[in-house]
């Protein structure tokens, strides 16, 4: 990380300076700007917010939301909750793997999609469900899943 990025991170979390209880908000701020929270940024956050490095590491690794490596341009969150599991989330994951060539926790080679698993999106009535960025797609089947991903990719074009 360059000095410029370090300064930028410090600037981003300035509002949380000396406020250990707002560590999570500070990390959210960094992630929403950089897309992930690299180790160097974690060190800056620790120093500015005023918590030990080990505590930042604990929080970043505890919450699935935080990422320490870069994400694709789109984040696909596939629900692996009970309802979606029962309604065949496994087949949707297979379709995703066939379409994108990657599975859970990975980013497709073209950098378009990062695939994540989540436990219940609170839309069980629509199971199986996935979210791509802020959009929810329910009542999925493998064919539709592939079509949606293709459309998003083309929409980027």
């Amino acid at each position, binding site marked *: 990380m360059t000095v410029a990025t370090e300064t930028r991170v410090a600037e981003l979390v300035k509002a949380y300076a000396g406020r250990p209880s707002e560590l999570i908000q500070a990390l959210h701020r960094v992630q929403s700007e950089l897309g992930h929270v690299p180790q160097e940024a974690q060190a800056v956050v620790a120093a500015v917010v005023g918590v*030990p490095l080990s505590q930042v590491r604990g929080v970043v690794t505890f919450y699935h939301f935080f990422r320490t490596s870069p994400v694709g341009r789109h984040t696909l969150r596939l629900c692996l909750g009970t309802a979606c599991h029962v309604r065949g989330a496994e087949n949707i994951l297979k379709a995703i793997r066939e379409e994108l060539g990657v599975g859970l926790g990975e980013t497709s080679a073209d950098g378009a999609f990062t695939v994540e698993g989540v436990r219940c999106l609170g839309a069980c009535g629509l199971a199986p469900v996935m979210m791509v960025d802020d959009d929810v797609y329910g009542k999925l089947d493998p064919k539709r899943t592939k079509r949606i991903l293709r459309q998003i990719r083309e929409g980027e074009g």
Partner: protein
Amino acid sequence: MINLRIDDVPAQAEPGQTILDAARAAGVRIPTLCHLEALCPVGACRLCLVEIRNWNGKLVPACATPAQEGLDVVANSDRLTSLRRTILELLFAERNHICAFCVSNGHCELQDLATELGMDHVTFPYRFPALALDASHAKFGIDHNRCVLCGRCVRACAEVEGAFTWGFAGRGVHTLVEADLGDRWGRSVTCTGCGKCVQACPTGALFEKGKITAEQEKRPALLAEITERRPRA
């Protein structure tokens, strides 16, 4: 003074003291693992579970429950022994505790508890996780295969040394004790090399370099010896 009964023996405690403190003062033995004198209680291992007769037999961790007037505590019973043995079995099944090859063989609190509670076999399938040993520190090493995640090292480093080097990274069975931002211990920018974590560790997870099988003896009482000498606020 708070008056209570532990295993039908009258016991007393000062306000702020725990059931464990009262039991120790009354000479009643309660097994513990994550608890260490001088460190904040966290109630993580549940080996010190006791039964409160006048709370409908509710189970509470003695190390983290304040002594209260009139409590009727069962500290030792067949039910408690079987519960404690199950907890131990889970700890043994979760990582690789191969005592015959451990630096702490013969000086290990986990091993001693297994002997005390008559845990002669493990009924759960062993997980045999492939975990690392980090020997990057000049004086010490950490072998995650022997770690029971009691957090005594984390608290010793934070509360007594004030370095806050150790923390828990990850969650569930994947939790590891890690230094700073997860780099190797030898690269830690906060570790002072004081060795308090090593002395606090109940197993062979943290060890001094140069010790071979069965040579590592610990001094967990060191933490209390240090804090008792400190001026009180």
